[in-house]
């Protein structure tokens, strides 16, 4: 645990990061920006898992394992999303949300 920092301050920090991610997810009009916001949200949840594990249950490691799985799934999701975005850009020459009407392969 961090010297002199309580769990409340870290949880406040992750809540703020989470809602910044939600703000970006709603207001952005571009697929890549939306992807960036999703990364922010996922990272906030990862920090929550790790910090709660460290502060409340230091003798077990479940939070660390879950956060490793979250990071792996986030990497997989980003790879797929980037490939979909590139394919979409080849077909309709745009990555704006309003231009995307078909996702039929």
């Amino acid at each position, binding site marked *: *645990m961090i010297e002199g920092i309580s769990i409340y301050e870290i949880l406040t920090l992750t*809540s703020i990061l989470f809602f910044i991610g939600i703000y970006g997810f*709603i207001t952005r009009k571009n697929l890549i920006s939306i992807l960036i916001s999703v*990364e922010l949200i996922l990272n906030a949840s990862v920090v929550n898992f*790790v910090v709660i594990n460290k502060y409340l249950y230091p003798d*077990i490691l479940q939070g660390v*394992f879950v956060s490793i799985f979250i990071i792996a799934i986030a990497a997989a999701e980003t790879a*797929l999303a980037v490939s979909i975005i590139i394919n979409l850009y080849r077909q309709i020459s745009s990555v704006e949300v309003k231009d995307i009407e078909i996702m039929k392969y």
Partner: protein
Amino acid sequence: MERYIFYIVALGMIVSAIASVASRKMLRSVIYLLFVLSGIAGIFFLVDYNFLAAIQLTVYAGGIIVLVIFSVLLVHHIEMKLEVAKFINRLLTAIACLIGIIIFVTIIYSYDFKVAENSTTTTTAEIGMGLLSYETGGFILPFEVISVLLLAVMVGAIVIAKGKMLIPKSDESI
């Protein structure tokens, strides 16, 4: 000492996150995201999970950021400004998010966490043994499932990104 480092890292992360969702230039917002991810790795170092910090730096800051930068460069002109939502929409979303933050923080501060005082360091060996253990609380099955998932994602990403060039609209329109 660690206290001040935490405050500096936290402030930097919040400022970079806001800049990342508010910047109108695509590449800049990716670089701000890189700062946020490095800050999270710093927090992992502060709570003494060195292995997780290394994973965060290699997978996120090394892999995902490079992937996103590649996609930005492939699909965008760097000079192009992004469209933003209408002002009233942004204002309403910001207010809703502020209310959400207030609710979260109130609930967090009203709950009494039973913090266990400790300063144990987790070694990488313990994490590896836990991931591969068959006993109760072991994570061997999710570990195997995620390896299959990564393989499937790799194949799927190649197939999707290869794609066909420009499907003729006249024949295949629905």
